[in-house]
């Protein structure tokens, strides 16, 4: 798997489209990241924290019943829902917070959509003694109220963002603006493989643990690689994390599942790769949902974590190169999978993850006993109770 070029591009995608005030901070971050990545002591601490605080390795689990009526294909879940704080997000916040400490930063700043990244940042901040400010859209605060309470219990300050769409996009704008005023002492913990270089690369490296473990576990348990790997795509971090374990296994098909909302033919969805066009948002060039005039469009998804008009630049690169295939699942299909999976398997998936699960059931109908479908179950669904 490749690193981006020296200017932060994966093919034509990525780069650094931010105001000058942030350039020095990104340079400083890139230097510190490069040094940390080359330092075995940094990785030792990261892995020890993932083991003792997060509970890694997360298991893989073969579904008994969910797709058994349509296929004999083994359907295997990578259980990121078992992580401390309930989603894959904490793999990344552990990495970034340890890097922040190494850099001598005294505060953490984060945006959040579903609240999972905010909770994961708040938890790590509490553990390391770093104060945390979380920016969250006012609409998301309403629809993910449980996570707001959790962040506050963990000592984080949650700031409601009332500008624009009042969701993840505007929370991210606000986090960038706040960071611009505090670059000297504050580390901006971005929650997905988005943003200006080196964020998309750095976040992928911290989420790669999902794919590395899953590959080893699948080989150990089943003696073969999966035929297909599936993950939902909001910004794209859980997907890039699990894909990273299999990118160099050319025979493994990679599937990214975007939020189809009320249907990708209309305007109410968040399928940037499927229905968007190339542009610049939040510091990098990638696909995004926008008007002909280049205004970023309002998106819709029942799942707050996928309700984002952009997507990480490396996914845009995978789309163009054909290494991964991107599909969509609607709100209604995701809700059906949320309920169906809970009843068949005894696991309540996050609505985000339910998009991947719904697509897995569709794909299973075209696969047989010799194949193996691996799904990234990116988070647990407690936050979504009562919403669908």
């Amino acid at each position, binding site marked *: 798997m490749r690193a981006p070029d020296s*200017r932060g591009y994966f093919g034509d995608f990525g*780069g*650094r*489209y*931010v*105001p*000058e*005030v*942030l*350039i*020095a*901070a990104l340079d400083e971050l890139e230097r510190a990241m490069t040094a940390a990545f080359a330092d075995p002591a940094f990785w030792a601490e990261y892995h020890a924290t993932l083991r003792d605080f997060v509970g890694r390795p997360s298991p893989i689990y073969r579904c008994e019943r969910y797709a058994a009526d349509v296929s004999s294909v083994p359907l295997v879940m990578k259980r990121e829902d078992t992580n401390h704080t309930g989603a894959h997000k904490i793999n990344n916040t552990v990495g970034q917070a340890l890097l922040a400490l190494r850099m001598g930063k005294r505060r953490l700043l984060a945006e959040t959509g579903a609240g999972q990244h905010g909770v994961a940042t708040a938890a790590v901040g509490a553990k390391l003694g770093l104060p945390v400010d979380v920016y969250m859209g006012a609409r998301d605060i309403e629809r993910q109220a449980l996570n707001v309470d959790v962040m506050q219990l963990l000592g984080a300050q949650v700031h409601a963002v009332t*500008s*624009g769409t009042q969701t993840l*996009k*505007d929370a991210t*704008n606000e986090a*960038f*603006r706040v960071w*611009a*005023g*505090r*670059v*000297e002492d504050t580390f901006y913990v971005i929650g997905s493989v988005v943003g200006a270089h080196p964020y998309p690369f750095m976040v992928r490296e911290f989420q790669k643990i999902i794919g590395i473990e899953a590959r080893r576990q699948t080989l150990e348990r089943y003696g073969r690689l999966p035929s297909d790997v599936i993950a939902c795509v909001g910004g794209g971090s859980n997907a890039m994390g699990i894909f990273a374990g299999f990118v160099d296994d050319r025979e493994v098909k990679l599937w990214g599942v975007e939020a189809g909302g009320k249907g990708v033919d209309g305007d109410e969805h968040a399928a940037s790769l499927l229905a968007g066009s190339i*542009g*610049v*948002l*939040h*510091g990098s060039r990638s696909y995004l949902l*926008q008007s*002909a*005039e*280049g*205004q*970023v469009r309002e998106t819709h998804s029942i799942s707050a974590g996928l309700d984002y008009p952009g997507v990480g630049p490396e996914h845009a690169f995978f789309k163009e190169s054909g290494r991964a295939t991107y599909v969509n699942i609607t709100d209604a299909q995701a809700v059906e999978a949320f309920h169906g999976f809970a009843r068949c398997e005894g696991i309540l998936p996050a609505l985000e993850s339910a998009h991947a699960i719904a697509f897995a059931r569709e794909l299973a109908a075209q696969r047989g006993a010799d194949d193996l479908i691996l799904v990234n179950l990116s988070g647990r669904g407690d936050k979504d109770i009562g919403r669908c």
Partner: protein
Amino acid sequence: MLDGAFVRARREKRLAFIPYVMVGDPDLETTEAVLLALSDAGADVIELGVPYSDPLADGPTIAAAGQRALRSATHLREVLALAWRCRERCAPIVLFTYYNPVYQFGVERFAREAAAAGIAGAIVPDVALDESVELRAALQAQGLAMPLLVAPSTPQQRAVRIADAATGFVYVVSRLGVTGAGYAPDFAPLHRQLASLREVTNKPLAVGFGVSRPQDVRNVGLLADAIVVGSALIDSYAGTRAQAAAARVRDFVAPLIAALPVS
């Protein structure tokens, strides 16, 4: 066009005055009246803000002005048309636009049509030195300037390279953070930044972000060539329209303009 404005100000021993206006806030008629009022009052250059949905470098005032402008369906095309309409009655115009609207319009086409509309240059705050090569070349080919920003966090060596690459003028950001009249410039570091830029460039230095009061203008002082005033100006006519807005603007800029002379 821009050079003339700065030379004249220097000759008159004063800072040049560069007001920033969000086009289409709240409608084009108001913007036109404000533009003409600013030009008559003595603006040397005018920055025209192009509305954008996600203005990362802007604080609440300009972001909200942009939202109002988007509600009146103002986009890059409308901004170019307004500039063309006003070209003979108005101070030289520099656009202030984020990159994505330009990218969707087409970089070459943008440069061509901006030149045809009589525009003097474009400031693109999310295109810093490193990503600026293509855009700068396209603008230069049409004779348009591309001022670049230097921030308080910009290391000295990089500031030299930015000053080298900038055309028209160098935009010196007065403090960390985003646009907005809420906090004043950080004068001590600003003066050091200006002094060190002075040693390496003859290009005009325009100071912006947080400049809102006559005393800010006086504090910027001799080391700069120009001041940019945005958020405070926008606040001055918020909630009014057309000629009423123009009257507010005249009242607001008079004491700022009176503070421009340096001795």
